[in-house]
Structure formats: structure tokens, C-alpha cells
């Protein structure tokens, strides 16, 4: 009964979506306030019904109702409760339901907080949102229904794939989807602007907070996924340039570009046509990302062929939204008036530079990801494109990008003073040179890439903080004054500096991890010793334990530094009887920002294969995105950008800028 209620709620949501997709748009055309006002309540009601459907599926999982096919295929009665919740979206059907749930949340938010939007814009935006929603409800109901039942229910479920039985599944997909789906708002705003044929700085001001919110979620979502893969897959890598990863990286790059071009549009009323295009492209890449992952076409063309209805439906949605969006753009964009002029050396110029390189990076990832597909379709041959390609090409592209990054925020709008900015960045450059020299002294002249990478990272971090330090007057004014100034700075200034510095922090981690990691692959017997990165590990032996739905073999290592015990590491291998599979659970010992990493191979005659890593400063790789997130959140809380609240501040309290 609960499953049927969920199914019915989803059908009702589809009905509401169809109404919301049509009525408000006609209302906006005719300036009919009643028709336009339909959008608000339907958006809220859609959210209620989708939430009901989602709750129904969750309820089926919690009570382990194996008469529901989806629950049978992805759950097990003995699974811990948390995984019963997370396995709701650990499969195709459920994850699509999560997708529409998030879409309806965003729709409801626009309806709730969009009261200050012009009525026609609000109506058009909500209508476009509803086109997307309707297409997805149809997709779920027609090809991926999570509520189907068995006529004769099985006794026990097949269990969730063991690799997914991890807290990572609770965080990573929802955050990623919040990002993907959040970009649908920018898309809807762009389409609405094209429909109206009118766009101005106020538009950018409304779009930016939504884009920023989506970008924050996507940033953290990708970083979380990376950390999850790092500790779960057992070979210590953090980014593999896998097509599914690339699918999430492309919207992130495009979204980053969109954030920056929207700044130019808001402040200077320029780059309007480009910003609209970016908004369309960003969401298109999100759609491609979702669908290529879900349809399985990227992992193998054959999975696509095994279920043609799903594949064809997916293609139709892609063609409709991407093709339709771009066609509308080609038709209407020439109507948009151009805005302010600027010299090449200016804040705008730097932001254009940012967009140019981000676009090139995004295109590289796109071409690299799709090339094998297109290649086999066109020539019948096969080709591999993997990490060595992406690391090389993006490694080259990112260098000029990062060198210019600290320059941008220091430039004046319209016409900048490059010489003046260079003078302000001298100290950052000096720090970078000290860093490069220090690396050469410490490691000898082995290669130039590692020292240069460290120098670049230092330059980016120091450069990002330059503006803050100057404005606050650190070391130049008394502490109390500096503190007051720091509190008085607009939060968006803090946001910019932190987000930019975060990228430098991540780069620092990546350079250290990829250049100075050490690794040992050993066969160890109990009481054997191994040393790595200055730490000595003693293998104490193995024990077997029974978990809720698995058995695990755990090895115990005592870690010593200079004879003193500093910790114990217990990597394990878990075997899951229900799926006849096993997982490797790596053990991590965190020392500052560095980590020791141990994972197990197969045991044989009391000897066990062990892989040990020492990864210096590896945590910075994920700390960077967390700092970027904090920067984004600070920016988002800036009163000028607060979601749906671009009202003028009280003049008396407005801090000087």
C-alpha cells in the first residue's frame, strides 16, 4: 500500500508539473496575473507530492519490504539502518527519485523566496523548471519505476553492493545532485530571460546566489566522492579521470566560469550573451553527467543497448533541453543589448581570461571523455584516454590560469593598472620563490615540476590573501583597528579570498601527494616490521570478526615513530555472503595533514600481502575544497547576494567598500 501511495503521489506530481509548465507561461505572455500566480502553489505542491513519494520508498526500505523489486535488489534485512536509508538512492531508480526530489525542493524555494522577482520572470522561471520536472517524472514513471512489485515476494533481499555500504553514500550523491540540480535554476533563469528577450544586471543578481549555492554543493560533493574513492578502493588514488568523475567535473568547471561571468554581468552589465550561454551549457553538462552515468553508455556501449527504452528516452530529454535551449539562444540572444565597454587590462579582462581557460579545460575534459565513444562509433576501432592524457593537458592549461588568478581581484574595473597590481603581488612572488628554493634545498635538483608546483601554490594562496591583508592593514595598524576593519569587510571579499586560496591549498596537497608519496608492497608475517616515510610498522597478526552482514579479516599494525608508539592501524577485508563479494577497508592514520595508508591483499599461509603508503600533506587535497566551500558560504551570506534578497541596505550601516 505504501509503495502504491508513493507511485500515486509521483503521478500527481507529474500532473501538477504539466499545469505549471503551461499556465504561467501563457499568463506571462498575456500579463495575466491569475495564470501567473498558478506557479507558486503548484511548485510547493509538487514538492509535497515528490517528498511523499520519496518518503514512501524510504519507508519500504526501512521495513525491508522485499515485495518491492527495487528494495529486493538493493537491500538486505540484516543491513544496518543507516544503509537502509542510503540504499534508497544507491541504485538507478531511487537516485532518479532523489534527483526529482531535489529539483522540486529548488522549485519550491524559488516559489517561496522569489517574491521580489518581477512577476513575469518568476512565472517563466517556474514554468521552465516544471518542464524539466515533467520530463523527469515521465522518465521515472515510464522507464524506471522504483515502486514496481513482485507478484510473489521473495523472502530476503539481494543486499546493497558492499562497496556502497559506506557513509560516503549518505553524503556524496545528495551533494552532487544538489549541485547538478541547482544549476537547473540558472538554466531556467536563462531560458526565461530569452523568452522575455530582456536581461539586465538585476537578473545576474538574482541568478548568482542560486548558482553559488549549487556550486558549493557540487564542490563539496566532488571532494567527498574523491575522498571516498581514496579510502574505499584501496589503492590510494584520489582522482582517476574516470568518465563518471569527468561527468561531475564538467558542470563544476562550467559552473565556476558561470559564477565569474555573472559577476561581470552584475557589476558592469557586460558579457550578457555569454553568461546566458554558460548558464545553458552548465545545466546541459549536468544533464549529460547525470544521464551518461545513469544510462551506462560511458562504461560500456552495451549496457545502453540492453535497455533501449531508457537510452532512447534519455536521448530525447537531452535533445529537447540542450538542443531546445541552444536553439532558443541562437534565435533570441541577438536581441539582448550589449553592456559596458572595458579595456583588456581590467577586472573584466581578467574574468574573461578566467572564462577562456575554464572553457578550454571543460572542452578538454569533454572531448577526452567522449572521444573513445565517438571514435568507436565512427571508425569501429578502440582507443583509450586516461589519466596520463588529462594530467598532461590540464596540467598545462591550469598554469596560466593560476598565475592570473591572484591578479584578477586586485584589478580595477574598466581599466586596470597591471604595474600597480604587480607591485602589490611582489611579496607573494617573493614567498613563492622562497618556497621553490626551499624545495630545491630539501630534495635536491631532481626535477623542476615539483618545486614549481609548490611555488605556484604558495603564490596562489598568498596572492589570494593580498587583498584582505592590505584592506585590513595587518601589521600596519593596531590590532583593534585591524580587527574592526576585518569585521567591516564585506563577506563577499572574504569569500573571494578564501575560495581562491582554497584552490592553492588543494594544489599544494596534489603536488606533495604526487611527488613525495612513498609506497611499499610487501608480504608480511606476524611480528614482521616495515618502515615507510620515517615510521615503523609492526604487523601484530590477524583476527576475524563478524559484522552485521559480513565477516571481516582484520590485520593489526602498531605504528612507531622513533621507538614511541603513535597509533594502531587495522586494515581489513570484508566478505559479504549475500553477494559473494568482498571489499578492502583501508586503514588511515592521520599525522597532521599527512596520512599513513594501509590496505590488505589476499592472505596465504599466514603471510599477507600489504600495501603501505605514506602520503605527505594529502589531506590538503580535500581541505582545499572545504575552504572553497567556506568562501562560497561567506559570499552567499553577504547581504547583497543573499538568496532572493537583493534589497538595498540601510545606508547608515553599510560598510565602506
Amino acid at each position: 500500500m505504501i509503495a502504491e501511495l508513493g507511485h500515486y503521489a509521483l503521478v500527481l506530481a507529474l500532473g501538477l508539473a504539466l499545469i505549471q509548465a503551461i499556465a504561467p507561461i501563457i499568463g506571462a505572455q498575456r500579463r495575466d496575473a491569475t495564470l501567473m500566480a498558478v506557479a507558486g502553489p503548484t511548485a510547493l505542491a509538487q514538492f509535497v507530492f515528490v517528498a511523499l513519494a520519496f518518503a514512501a520508498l524510504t519507508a519500504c526500505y526501512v521495513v525491508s519490504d522485499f515485495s518491492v523489486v527495487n528494495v529486493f535488489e538493493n537491500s538486505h534485512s540484516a543491513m544496518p539502518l543507516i544503509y537502509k536509508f542510503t540504499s534508497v538512492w544507491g541504485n538507478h531508480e531511487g537516485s532518479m527519485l532523489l534527483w526529482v526530489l531535489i529539483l522540486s525542493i529548488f522549485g519550491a524555494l524559488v516559489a517561496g523566496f522569489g517574491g521580489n522577482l518581477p512577476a513575469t520572470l518568476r512565472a517563466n522561471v517556474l514554468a521552465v523548471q516544471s518542464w524539466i520536472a515533467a520530463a523527469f517524472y515521465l522518465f521515472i514513471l515510464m522507464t524506471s519505476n522504483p515502486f514496481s512489485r513482485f507478484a510473489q515476494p521473495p523472502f530476503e533481499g539481494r543486499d546493497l553492493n558492499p562497496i556502497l555500504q559506506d557513509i560516503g553514500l549518505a553524503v556524496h550523491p545528495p551533494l552532487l545532485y544538489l549541485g547538478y540540480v541547482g544549476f537547473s535554476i540558472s538554466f531556467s533563469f536563462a531560458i526565461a530571460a530569452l523568452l522575455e528577450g530582456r536581461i539586465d544586471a538585476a537578473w545576474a543578481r538574482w541568478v548568482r546566489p542560486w548558482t553559488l549555492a549549487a556550486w558549493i554543493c557540487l564542490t563539496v560533493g566532488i571532494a567527498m566522492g574523491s575522498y571516498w574513492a581514496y579510502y574505499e578502493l584501496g589503492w590510494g588514488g584520489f582522482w582517476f579521470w574516470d568518465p563518471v568523475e569527468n561527468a561531475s567535473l564538467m558542470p563544476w568547471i562550467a559552473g565556476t566560469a558561470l559564477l565569474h561571468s555573472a559577476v561581470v554581468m552584475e557589476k558592469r552589465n557586460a558579457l550578457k550573451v555569454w553568461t546566458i550561454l554558460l548558464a545553458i551549457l552548465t545545466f546541459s553538462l549536468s544533464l549529460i553527467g547525470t544521464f551518461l552515468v545513469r544510462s551506462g553508455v560511458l562504461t560500456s556501449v552495451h549496457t545502453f543497448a540492453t535497455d533501449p527504452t531508457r537510452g532512447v528516452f534519455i536521448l530525447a530529454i537531452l535533445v529537447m533541453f540542450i538542443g531546445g535551449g541552444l536553439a532558443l539562444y541562437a534565435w533570441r540572444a541577438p536581441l539582448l543589448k550589449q553592456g559596458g565597454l572595458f579595456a583588456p587590462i581590467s577586472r573584466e579582462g581578467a574574468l574573461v581570461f578566467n572564462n577562456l581557460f575554464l572553457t578550454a579545460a571543460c572542452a578538454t575534459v569533454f572531448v577526452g571523455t567522449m572521444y573513445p565513444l565517438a571514435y568507436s562509433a565512427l571508425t569501429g576501432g578502440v582507443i583509450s584516454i586516461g589519466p596520463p592524457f588529462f594530467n598532461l593537458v590540464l596540467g598545462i592549461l591550469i598554469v596560466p590560469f593560476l598565475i592570473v588568478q591572484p591578479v584578477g581581484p586586485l584589478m580595477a574595473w574598466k581599466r586596470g593598472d597591471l604595474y600597480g597590481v604587480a607591485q602589490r603581488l611582489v611579496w607573494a612572488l617573493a614567498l613563492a620563490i622562497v618556497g621553490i628554493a626551499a624545495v630545491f634545498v630539501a630534495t635536491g635538483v631532481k626535477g623542476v615540476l615539483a618545486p614549481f608546483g609548490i611555488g605556484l601554490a604558495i603564490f596562489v594562496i598568498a596572492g589570494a590573501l593580498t587583498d584582505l591583508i592590505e584592506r585590513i592593514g595587518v601589521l600596519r595598524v593596531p590590532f583593534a583597528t585591524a580587527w574592526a576593519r576585518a569585521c567591516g569587510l564585506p563577506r563577499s571579499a572574504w569569500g573571494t579570498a578564501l575560495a581562491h586560496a582554497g584552490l592553492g591549498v588543494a594544489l599544494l596537497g596534489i603536488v606533495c601527494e604526487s611527488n613525495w608519496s612513498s609506497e611499499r608492497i610487501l608480504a608480511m608475517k606476524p611480528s614482521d616490521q616495515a618502515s615507510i616515510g620515517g615510521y615503523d610498522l609492526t604487523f601484530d597478526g590477524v583476527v576475524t570478526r563478524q559484522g552485521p552482514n559480513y565477516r571481516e579479516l582484520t590485520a593489526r599494525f602498531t605504528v612507531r615513530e622513533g621507538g614511541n608508539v603513535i597509533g594502531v592501524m587495522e586494515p581489513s577485508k570484508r566478505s559479504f555472503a549475500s553477494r559473494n563479494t568482498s571489499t578492502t577497508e583501508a586503514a588511515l592514520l592521520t599525522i597532521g595533514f599527512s596520512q599513513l595508508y594501509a590496505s590488505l591483499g589476499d592472505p596465504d599461509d599466514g603471510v599477507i600481502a600489504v600495501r603501505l603508503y605514506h602520503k605527505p600533506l594529502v589531506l590538503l587535497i580535500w581541505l582545499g575544497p572545504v575552504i572553497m566551500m567556506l568562501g562560497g558560504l561567506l559570499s552567499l551570506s553577504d547581504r547583497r547576494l543573499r538568496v532572493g534578497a537583493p534589497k538595498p541596505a540601510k545606508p547608515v550601516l553599510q560598510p565602506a567598500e
Partner: protein
Amino acid sequence: MRILAAVAVAMTLWSAPALAVQPDEVLSDPALEARARALSRELRCMVCQNQSIDDSDAPLARDLRILVRDRLKAGDSDGQVIDFLVARYGQFVLLRPHFGADTALLWLAPVGVLAIGVVALVLFARRRRNAATAEVPTQALSETERARLAELTGEPQK
């Protein structure tokens, strides 16, 4: 999302993810072993989803790792090992394809996008500048315009 790919691989190919490089494969000469590892990261395990033979647990990857090490021990240079494997398995084995007629689009895409962007920017800026100068009125007012102006301002025009 990489996890999901790994799931697909784990389900279809083998059931127990173990260590990739096994202790018995490791060469005793650290310099040679380092070269072998670097080469392994450039080579694809052909039965896996986008994994290098350095990362993969598949039996084929193990065979290839041992093959690479055998060639290195026999005194091959890195280039010779790569050539040997390409001759045997085709381009597919390379995770970074060589530049050629069929991969030109791939390798030139980043440069191409940058170039197109720069050209578009220059053209755009030039057009904007021309448009901006064109907007400045260059002609004097016509007779009818003068009359209309005089009428509006109530002042006799020269």
C-alpha cells in the same frame, strides 16, 4: 561516482578487489621498479573500465605488469617497451594516445578552443569599438530637426 564504476567492474569481472601490484612482482632493483611503475600507469588494462595495469587486479593486468618488467630486465628502453606493447595490442593499450591523424582532434581541442576564444574576443572587441564610434553623431542636425528643436526649447536656433 568513481565508486559506481568500480562497482560495475567488480560485479562483472571478478569478485574480490585485492591489491594490484603483488609483492612477488616487485623488482629488486629500485630504479628499474620505479620505471616499471611509471610505465604501468601509462598502460591500460584492456579488460577493465579505464584502469591502468598499475591499478588493476585483473589477471591480464598482472600478466602485462610482469611482461613490462621482463622487457625492462632484458634491457629495453621505456620507448621500446611501449612500442612492443603497441605492436602487440594496438593503440588501445595506451592511456595517452599518440598524436596522429585519428587523434589530432583530441590533442588540438584545447588549443583550438583557446584560439577560437581569442579570435572571437578580438573580433568582438573590434566590432564593439566600431559600433561605439559609430554611435557618436557625425552629421549636423538637418533643417527639420533644427526647427523641431527650436519649437521644443522655445529658443530661436542659429
